[in-house]
């Protein structure tokens, strides 16, 4: 079996948002939408800090679809548009998506974005990888683990562009892979484990 995933080293993450924009570019994500965001843990403001000056800490948390093994979004999808593919990636069949947004409400990670209107690209043209299908008004979208790239042996664009090598892509079912070794780190954790979603994406610190 194959279980593709990304492991993120939170110490190496400098909050630069390169992954967010690399994803936006690769996947032709329209104006005002991001599949991949970088949050500052427990802060309203990006680059905020926890605590009271000068007793402060800060953790950036890049956040996109966690590609859960027990995906809440998939369970609530009434049409089967959301599915888990043969490589363990949670995908959306855009043709089956009816825009009910049940998945959006179900996802505890707030990882899905919806085309409330016709997608706008201020440049007036599509950008990104030409293999990525376009989406229309009424369709849900989210991180696909760069399906078009990873299907052909490339790593996701967020991993490819990360300036600090904070992101590791690979197959969790291969015990010798770099990502599996990273997953065995003591600090490895999944987000909101109590939800029982069993994310593939994990974080180390």
């Amino acid at each position, binding site marked *: 079996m194959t279980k593709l995933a990304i492991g993120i080293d939170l*110490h190496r993450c400098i909050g630069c948002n*390169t992954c967010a924009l690399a994803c936006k570019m690769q996947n*032709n994500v329209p104006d005002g939408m991001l599949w991949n*965001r970088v949050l500052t843990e427990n802060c309203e403001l990006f680059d905020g800090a926890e605590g009271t000056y000068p007793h402060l800490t800060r953790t950036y948390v890049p956040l996109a679809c966690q590609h859960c093994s027990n995906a809440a979004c998939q369970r609530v999808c009434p049409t089967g548009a959301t599915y888990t593919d043969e490589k363990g990636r949670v995908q959306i069949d855009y043709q089956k998506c009816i825009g009910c947004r049940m998945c959006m409400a179900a996802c505890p990670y707030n990882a899905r974005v*919806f085309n409330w209107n016709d997608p706008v690209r201020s440049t007036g*043209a599509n950008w990104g*990888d030409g293999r990525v299908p376009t989406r229309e008004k009424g369709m849900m979208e989210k991180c696909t683990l760069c399906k078009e790239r990873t299907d052909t042996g490339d790593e996701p664009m967020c991993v490819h562009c990360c300036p600090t090598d904070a992101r590791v892509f690979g197959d969790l079912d291969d015990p010798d892979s770099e990502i599996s070794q990273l997953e065995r780190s003591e600090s490895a954790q999944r987000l909101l484990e109590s939800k029982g979603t069993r994310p593939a994406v994990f974080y180390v610190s």
Partner: protein
Amino acid sequence: MENAMKGTALSRRSFLKTAGALGALGAAGAIGANLAAGPAEAQSGAGEAKGYTYHNEHCLCNCMLECTVRDGRLAMVQPRPNEDHRFQNICLKGISEVENIYGEARLQRPMKRTGERGSGQFEAISWDEAFQTIAENFKAIQDKYGKEALWIQFSTEASQRFPPLLASVLGAQAGGMNGYDMGQGNGQIMAFSPWIGMFAQNTIWEWPEAAVVILANTNLVETSLTWSRGMLDAQKAGTKFICLDPRFSPTAGKADQWVNLRAGTDPAFFLGMTKYILDQDLFDREHVTAHTSFPLLIDSETGACLADVTPGTNPETGEPVELKTFYVWDEATGAAVPQGTEGATPALEGEFTVNGKRYVTQFTRLREDMEPYTLDWTAETCDIPASLVADVATQYAKGPSIIDNGVGGIDKFGNNDVAGHCYALIASLTGNYGKRGTGCGIYGYHVTPYEAHLGGWALPEGMAPAPSPQGFYDMVKGNSVHGAMFFGDIPTQKAANWNKTLEWLDSLDFVCLADIYHSSVTDFVDLVLPVCSKFECADSVGGIKCANAHILANLKVLDPLFESKSDFYIEKGIAEVMGLGNLFPANGEEYARAILTTDDPQVAGFTLEKLQEAGGALRLIGSEDLIVPEVGFNYATASGKQEPYYEALLEFGQAFPAWESPCEAYPENPLREKYPLQFNQARSRFRVHSAYSGAKWIQEVAEPHIELNPADALARGLADGDAVEVFNDRGSFRTVLRLNEAVRPESAFMAESTYRQYLDDTIMQAVSNDQLNERGYVLPFGPMIPFNDTLIEIKKVGE
């Protein structure tokens, strides 16, 4: 001005430590559709081509980029594959260009102003009319006032990659002292000659060999973004990072230890460390005796060095120089003997009589001079615990240690040179200069020791820019210049106190701007020209450069967008109207070949064709090892030793660094009653100065705002998201307030400079301090503008 913040609002969520509240989703939905989206289906491979360039050079990362062009439009920008992973880089700024070069801020056609300055009223004109107008005005100004009355200045951002020629051809002024970025350099350059005083003599890749790296006002992870890997890898290897910053900056958050000193007090922190190191005997006695000027004798009253002076000649320039033979006190014979006397045992400390006069060693003077800087004084001045000063001093002295300074923070204070001088002093004192894992200077962008000597375009003998005796900081106060052309927004980026700058602009007979984007100064000039972005060329090549141990080519990715021209063709166009076009290369290819004509063996055999085949970059021959040989202990200083004692600064009381308050933002300043907040502006990852201000993708993750500590906001009745006016006696600007515990109380923080259209048509340099430190005029890099040595107050707009 709207109070609401736009863009991708992110809800407060905690993912790591608690389950976090559900609901209140913060993901952005699609924003209102008001621009027609291209209906074309994306199709793999159809009409796709690859192009190569490098970008951004203004942040000095010089990322080598592989660009995908589809149907004639930029579709993707990725890092160009590189065998050396350290040079396979990109960040959000490079990626954002996919939208930005087509964005709403782009200048699209030549325009002349039709309304009042600042009105934004323009009419489109042809390139022919633009060139004609510029040529007529340039000629009139130079005929009336002299050639040097015209000033043509380039910013890194809006100029392409070929060295400019127009100022040389016209004999106009082109330069001038910077007035920024070199304040600490002014203070450290003299100790380790022949060092250039800014970039360190070794590279960031040597950091794993240091036990400690002090990041002195270096927000490395934002301002040297792609080189953050150097810090993180060293940290993984065990190097400890100590970050000095009043704000809990992104770099402070990644460091092992944070020193949250009061803004403008970096010199005090280092002076306190120096005193502690002396008192605790933590200095490197062997190093100090062998490799520094500390044992040299100085007049106990005047501070002048005891030396024999003989006339000599500079071996490189042939110019006459004074050769000095310094004296030390030989403990063996009890007499002053020339430095270097064989068999002598120089005394490190003591007071001695030579020919009836009293002399002390520099080291003894150091102990005296450092007396005031006790731990308690330092703690009070820097507003930090005394134990923190002692702790950092102990770690630094143990070494091997490095001081990495940035060019923000203290560099934008009136006492910046004192800070740099302190770095040189403490490094000399503790043996943290010269050997592996030690050093000081700028490391953030310093990733290779290699620099190729490239060719250039030959102009007729004697054709050169007029000397530029003044910095822009003085030019704006005088009347020596009557006409100006800026490539990029020089006036709002290189000068403080915008209203003074505006008065100067008003005084000019003619001023024009060539820029890629509608930057802040655009509405204040007479004529505007649209410049190509770094992805556009009329020719197959738009520039050649040496950086990152490579020769980089700015190859054509796109044809010029809209009606833009590269700065090369703008210069050439003006020159042609003035009858001087024949002095220019015919095109980019000819210019590129001239630059590649060199006998430097590092680029032997490099041609334009080979650069094109290689995807725009060739590694310099023999540049594999990015760690330089040990700097060592031979110096071109007068004594041949490390010389932290600056005899030339005796008249300023700064032979050894001495504490000097910031010129405005010091705690006791009575002005604090009106303007209690120190205003800290600094570069962020989201822009390079004002560049990328209009990049919509970056706006989706970060919008311009000023930050206050919540306690300061509460005291003013201000709330997160308020539209506020920031003001002092010099002027004001408007922006949005955000609250952040990371900001030091009694200060305000703002990522520096954005276009005025994003600040409610105001300019943040309206408040910044333009008061120069007179000492700067005798220092190598001239005086520095104390942008951050500024006091302000903040109130709600309309109150």
